[in-house]
């Protein structure tokens, strides 16, 4: 299967197989009016299988958000058909406005305009905790 190389844009590579649609949705790529290609289950020497997203224009990306969804991702910035920047992502120390605290005793449960913010407390186990009540994200 052949997908055209892009001249100016972004290639989100090394996405864990099966996670591309989640990333597509979280990054709001459905709202773009340019070409966006999602490649699923591409053969990868490093990962066995991987997903790739190609975006046919440059745009601001929330690096923290991408790193949170999948820290194994590599982002390539392409200009004039050439690779200009390669960025490896890590789990971000803080995440704002993505996760929602589910603790019914948290102040954010009654004051919903408060910004939702989580901090990484255990990198190995990928544990994020609400800055207000310290509840574990997703728990």
């Amino acid at each position, binding site marked *: 299967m052949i997908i055209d190389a892009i001249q100016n844009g972004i290639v989100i590579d090394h996405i864990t197989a099966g996670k591309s649609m989640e990333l597509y949705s979280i990054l709001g790529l459905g709202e773009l009016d340019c070409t966006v290609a999602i490649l699923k289950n591409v053969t990868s020497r490093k990962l066995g299988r991987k997903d790739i997203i190609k975006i046919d224009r440059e745009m601001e990306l929330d690096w923290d958000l991408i790193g949170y969804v999948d820290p194994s991702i590599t982002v390539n910035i392409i200009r004039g058909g050439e690779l200009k920047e390669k960025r490896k992502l890590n789990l971000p120390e803080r995440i704002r406005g993505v996760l929602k605290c589910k603790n019914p005793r948290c102040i954010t449960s009654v004051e919903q305009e408060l910004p939702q913010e989580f901090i990484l407390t255990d990198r190995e186990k990928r544990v994020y905790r609400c800055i207000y009540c310290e509840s*574990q994200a997703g728990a």
Partner: protein
Amino acid sequence: MNSLIDIFDLTPQEIMELINTACDIIDRPAAYAHKCDGKILATLFFEPSTRTRLSFESAMLSLGGQVLGFSEAKSSSAAKGESVADTIRTVSCYSDIIAMRHPKEGAPLVASMHSPVPIINAGDGGHNHPTQTLTDLLTIHREKGHFDGLTVGLCGDLKFGRTVHSLVAAMSRYPDVRFVLISPEELKLPRYVKEQYIKNPGIPYIQSASLEEVMPQLDILYMTRVQRERFFNEEDYLRLKDSYILTPEKLRGAKEDLRILHPLPRVNEISVAVDNDPRACYFKQVQYGKYIRMALILKMLGIE
């Protein structure tokens, strides 16, 4: 220090400074009687807590300051739907320092983000209660003279008791401390608390379901209440409840210099027959709570 939200906002050195100030207040109360002349403490209690609120108010009055505030949410503008941030912006116009209790976890942190004056967390739901932990630390230090090398027994509801979690966290920062965790299976210390503050730093500990078995080892016994509503069934509660009631009989094997603490209020987990035992410290602990809050108010207002 701008605000005290969590006990970890204080370093062990800062805690020791507070303890030293509190001890000086105990020795020379008159020297502190006018330290806060002209200063106002606001006590914003969005849920009732007689003991903590009166302790803060008594502390400020003993420093020569004045107090204002409310003791339940329905007598505040929160009842009209005002946000914590707006309440704090308003109250900070009337006061120099604010002690706040709120049923929602994280509310004092939100307050501190919007307040030009220092905020003291006086308890946020089941989350943090740093001035109780300071009270516990002052009590231990006054009674034992040090923190190092103590064997600290924590008994009862170790799962839901926030004072237990904070005390474990605070004591884990001192050398050669050892923990004895005494609880029924259903109310064991949560795994994340145990891993973070005991296992990962390599602090020795034992777990036991029997208070009597471990009693001879203890330097400190921190009692908490085993509450009926924490059990899934009544049968388990009835089977276990008496095991965690401290009586003179259970104290037979205890050290002569054991010290018994309890964050209070007590219901029935310490028999009144223990109250006159010289090892019982829980009412002294209440008194110490006032002195450490006096020291804290001085520190947060930057008064020497």
